[in-house]
C-alpha cells in the first residue's frame, strides 16, 4: 500500500474522530440539560410541569424518530446557514449533533430514572432547592448511568458518521464508499472497517473503565 493511501486513511480517521468529538461534546452539553428537564418536570417530580414535560417529550420523540439519513438531507439549509457549506466534516457534524441530542437526553433521563426516589426525598427533607437536588444529588448519583449512556452515544455517532460520509461528509465512511466501493478496492474497504471496529472498541473500553472507576455500589 502506498504512503498516499496510508495518509488518506490517517486523515479519514482523524476526520471521523473530529466529527464524533464535536457532535459528542455539543450533544452532551445540550442533551444533558434536556434529559434532566425531561426527568424533573414529570408529574410529582421536583419541578413538576406536566405540560412542558409533554411538549419536551414530543419534540424529543420527533428527533428520535427521523431516520438519520433523511435528517441529514432535510436540514441542509440549516447546516448551510450554520457552517456555510453542506459538505465536509464541519457540515456533517451539524446533523450528527442534532440527531444525538434527543438520543443523549433519553439516555440521561433513563439513568436518572434508575435512582431511588428516597434520595430525592432525603434531599428535600434537608431543605435542598431543586437546583441543589439536580447538581448535588441527581447528577452525581447517576454518573455511572450517564457515562454508560454517553458511551452508547459515541459508539452510535461513529456509525452515523460513516453514514454521513456517504453523502460527502468526509471521514472513514466517505473513504470506504469512494475508494472501497466505487473503485473496487477491497483492501481499503477492509482497513476502513477494521479502523471503525477498533475505534468503537476503544470508546467502549474507555466508557467501561470510567464506570468502574466511579462505581461505589
Amino acid at each position, binding site marked *: 500500500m502506498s504512503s498516499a493511501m496510508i495518509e488518506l486513511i490517517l486523515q479519514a480517521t482523524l476526520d471521523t474522530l473530529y466529527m464524533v468529538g464535536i457532535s459528542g461534546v455539543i450533544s452532551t452539553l445540550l442533551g444533558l440539560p434536556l434529559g434532566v428537564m425531561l426527568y424533573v418536570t414529570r408529574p410529582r417530580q421536583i419541578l413538576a410541569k406536566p405540560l412542558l414535560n409533554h411538549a419536551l417529550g414530543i419534540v424529543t420523540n420527533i428527533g428520535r424518530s427521523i431516520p438519520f439519513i433523511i435528517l441529514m438531507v432535510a436540514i441542509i439549509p440549516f447546516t448551510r446557514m450554520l457552517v456555510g457549506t453542506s459538505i465536509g466534516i464541519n457540515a456533517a457534524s451539524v446533523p450528527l449533533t442534532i440527531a444525538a441530542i434527543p438520543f443523549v437526553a433519553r439516555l440521561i433521563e433513563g439513568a436518572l430514572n434508575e435512582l431511588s426516589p428516597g434520595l430525592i426525598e432525603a434531599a428535600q427533607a434537608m431543605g435542598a432547592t431543586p437546583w441543589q437536588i439536580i447538581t448535588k444529588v441527581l447528577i452525581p*448519583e447517576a454518573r455511572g448511568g450517564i457515562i454508560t449512556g454517553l458511551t452508547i452515544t459515541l459508539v452510535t455517532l461513529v456509525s452515523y458518521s460513516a453514514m454521513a460520509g456517504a453523502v460527502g461528509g468526509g471521514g472513514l465512511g466517505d473513504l470506504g464508499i469512494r475508494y472501497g466501493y466505487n473503485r473496487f478496492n477491497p483492501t481499503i474497504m477492509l482497513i476502513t472497517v477494521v479502523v471503525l471496529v477498533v475505534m468503537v472498541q476503544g470508546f467502549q473500553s474507555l466508557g467501561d473503565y470510567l464506570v468502574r472507576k466511579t462505581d461505589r455500589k
Partner: protein
Amino acid sequence: MIELNNVSKTYGAGHDAVHALKGVNLAIPKGAIHGVIGLSGAGKSTLIRCVNLLERPTQGTVTVDGQEITRLSNTALNQARHRIGMIFQHFNLLTTRNVFDNVALPLELMGQPRRDIRERVSPLLEMVGLSDKADQFPAQLSGGQKQRVAIARALASNPRVLLCDEATSALDPQTTSSILELLRDINHQLGITILLITHEMEVVKSICHRVGLISNGELVEDAEVGDFFTAPRTQLGRDFLNDFLQLSPPKELLERLSDNLDANAHPVVRLTFSGDAVSTPLISRLARDCGVDVSILQAKVESIQERTLGLMIAELLGTSEQTQAAMDYLADHQLQVEVLGYVQRND
C-alpha cells in the same frame, strides 16, 4: 414542639379519592419521644411526611417550633427544614459520597464554608461511633452503620426535631436496639424532640414516652406508653398488645373453648394486671377467699419503662357462683378480666 391541627390528606378526587389522613390532631411537647404505631397503609408515612411537608396536607395546619410550616413560602420552608432532621427505613445515603461527605451534605446545602463543615462533621461521627469509617462508602457499611451515618447527617444542621420513618424496620433485632439506644442518647443529650413511626411495639416500648395508634387515617389512641401497654382502649390496640406479648391460649385449648355456660363449665380468662396488682399475691387469696382453684395456662411479666405489666391466661375451677365471685374479686383489685370462653369439666 410539633403540633398537627386537624390535618387531612386526600389523594385523588371524586370516587377514586383516598383519604390517607382524616382530621389528625397531635401535640408533641419539647424533648419528648413520641411514637405513632399502625399497620401498613394506615397513614403513618403520610403523617410523618406532613410534618416537614414532604406531603402537603389537604387541610389543617402543621406547626413546628412555633412556626406554622404550612404557611411558609418555598424558600422559608427550605430554611425551616434545616431545623427538622429526618431518617428513613432505607437510609437514603448518597452512594457516591463517602461517610464524611454524606454527613457534610446538609451543611453544604446551607452554604457553610468547608472549614466549619469539617469542625461540625467530625464530632458527629464520633457521637455515632463511626470516626474510623469517615472515608468509607455506604456500600462498605452494614445496615446499622448506614443508619448511624443517616442519623449523623440528620443532626448536622442542628435540628430541633428528628423524624424517624420506620428507622429500624430494615434492621435485625440486635442492631435495632443499638440504634434505639443511640436515639435515646440523642434525645437525652441534645434535648431533641423525636417523632417516630413504626409497626413494632418493641420500638415503642423501649424508647417512646407517648404513643399514638393510627388506623385508617385516624388517630384512634394517644396515650402514655405505660397506659397504652396496660390498658389499650381500642380493639386494634389490644391486638397489637397481644401480638407483642405473644400471649394467646394454646391451640388445643382454643379448640375446646365454647360459649356454653352450664353448670359443668369452667371459665378460661385472660387477666391483665399492672401497678399495685402485680405485687399483690392475688392468686393465693383467690383460692383462700373464694374457694376457687386456679390453673395457670400461660403467664408473662413485661417491664414497660417504669411500669410492670402482667398477663395471664388461667382456668378457674369451682362452682359457677365461686368463679363469678372470683372474677368480681379480681375486677375489684384493678385487674382486667376477659373471659375467653368455657371448657367442659373432665372429671
